[in-house]
């Protein structure tokens, strides 16, 4: 088990390292000159431009620049934003909480409502199954920005239950502000996970070992808990992990649509203004969050189903 976790952590660090290279390389190749951006669009003398290029190490070879950036990131020196003229760490720190709350909120909705409705659809009889299937089909078909518009129209404009715009202050107010974005962000994923859960629970219900447990006279509730849900948990969790990890990237749309000040909206704004320093760090952060969530899911899955550990050792 310790070896397994060790291998997972090593793989995670390797993935982030490769991602950092790709991210830096892609933005290095992107068109546009950071130096003229730094000049703020003013006509600058070649000497002033050269001074800026020297200050930001823009004339160094690619690998040297990459190494300087990476070692800076590793030691906590994220650099300054080209547009805001502020340390990237400040920009991100101010917005991180909103994004983490939004992702956590959406994750809870996905896991609670998605998994719950999937189980109900699988064991709750035909009417429940049909209701859940119809709902999830609609939700899966609607992209997040469409869901956002519909939600704003119904709950913010017509009913005035939730604010249309902004992030709020204080915990309760933030949650209130984040409800609609979280729903919009999670709807499609939630429906997807509901479908997966339903299929997995159905498959377990019909499996031989469940028939055998019934033949042994095990109570229905115990069969559902110990043999059906327990066995369906591993695949459902694997899909949930990827889904939740993917939410970090999905925050861009939800935050933009609802005017939430978070990492996703910062990423979109910075990319639009070619603020490469910010884009690099946020992109790396999103990758790291994705990989971290995936690793945690892998470890929990190995605890749930130790066959995975052995498959690794043999193979």
């Amino acid at each position: 088990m310790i070896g397994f976790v060790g291998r997972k952590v090593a793989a995670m660090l390797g993935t982030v390292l490769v991602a950092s290279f790709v991210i830096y390389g892609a933005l290095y190749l992107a068109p546009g000159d950071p130096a003229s951006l730094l000049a703020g669009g003013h006509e600058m003398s070649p000497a002033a431009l050269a001074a800026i290029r020297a200050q930001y190490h823009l004339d160094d070879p690619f690998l040297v620049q990459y190494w300087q950036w990476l070692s800076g990131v590793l030691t906590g020196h994220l650099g300054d934003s080209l547009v805001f003229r502020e340390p990237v760490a400040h920009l991100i720190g101010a917005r991180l909480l909103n994004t983490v709350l939004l992702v956590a909120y959406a994750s809870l909705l996905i896991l609670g409502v998605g998994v719950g409705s999937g189980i109900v659809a699988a064991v709750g009889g035909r009417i429940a199954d049909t209701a859940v299937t119809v709902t999830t089909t609609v939700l899966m078909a609607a992209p997040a920005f469409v869901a956002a518009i519909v939600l704003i129209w119904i709950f913010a404009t017509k009913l005035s239950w939730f604010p249309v715009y902004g992030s709020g202050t204080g915990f309760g107010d933030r949650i209130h502000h984040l409800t609609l974005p979280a729903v919009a962000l999670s709807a499609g994923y939630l429906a997807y996970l509901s479908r997966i859960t339903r299929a997995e629970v159905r498959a377990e219900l019909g499996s031989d070992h469940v028939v055998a447990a019934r033949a042994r006279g095990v109570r229905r509730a115990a069969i559902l808990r110990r043999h059906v849900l327990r066995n369906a948990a591993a695949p459902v969790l694997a899909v949930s992990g990827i889904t939740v990890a993917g939410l970090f990237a999905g925050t861009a749309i939800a935050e933009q649509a609802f005017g939430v000040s978070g990492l996703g909206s910062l990423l979109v704004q910075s990319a639009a203004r070619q603020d490469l320093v910010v884009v690099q760090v946020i992109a790396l952060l999103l990758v790291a969050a994705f990989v971290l969530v995936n690793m945690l899911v892998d470890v929990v899955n190995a605890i749930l189903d130790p066959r995975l550990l052995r498959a690794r050792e043999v193979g």
Partner: protein
Amino acid sequence: MTAFLEFDHLRVDVPTPMGPRPVLRSVNLAIAAGEAVGLVGESGSGKSLTARSVLGLLPGGATIAGAVRFRGTDIGTLDAAGLRRLRSREVAMVFQDPRATVNPVRTIGDFLTEVLRERGMSRSAALALAGGILADIGVDDVPRRLKQRPYELSGGLLQRVVIAAALAGEPALILADEPTTALDVTTQEEVVAILDEQRRQRGTALLFISHDLELATAVCDRIAVMYAGEIVEILPAKSLHEEARHPYTKALLRARPGSVPPGERLQIVPGTPQSGIEAPPGCVFADRCPVVEADCRTTVPLLVGGVACHLEVP
């Protein structure tokens, strides 16, 4: 006198696109307490379904006519709690493939003690009981086995665990549905020997389903031959070869590997196996019978004197 286990004109219809069709046509069989009966016949003849009907484990949408009575109680009249009590205390089932029977993510100890714990036994007492049975049937290193999971055990060992789980509930009847088919040949004999020995010691009745006539005659007191959802002949295991009267039983006996000298081509039962759905309306074996007569195709022969055949009426 009420029989221990009795199939009384048991008919089971399952839904098909053409409407309900019978998989079991008319099963008549009585098993005494402590008796071992072998149920043999080709695939699709309804052997497994016959055994499962004792536990009320029929496929969805199946309808039942006639009755299965266990100690005088019609299984069909039991409610969910009664059925659960029957399954956990009176009748145990050993399935074909132990790999599929045991939940792959739980430990052997969990599997063996699950039903005992539901009865209110403490965890340690249940583990001690289960461990004792495992040791009795020749499983070594019991404490470690109880902590292992199914994928860590061989098929033969896992089937012993399944048999131990069946014995742990101290049932009066064990239904063994081809318990060795999924095992390799060398472990088959060991597993059957364990089942045979344990049930004799405990006086447990056994319904033993098998394709293997030799195996069934070695373990059982009587053999019931099944074809297309009907029992066509019942006879003592000892005199199976000498006293077989039904043409199907005779054909099965000729088709055994031991019935021809080594090197010669094995005999087969002519035609293809039929299920209760496909069999003809009169005698179920009429389509494949070498001595079929006009009467056979129209009239269902009754199971009288141990055989259901028009040509054997005294």
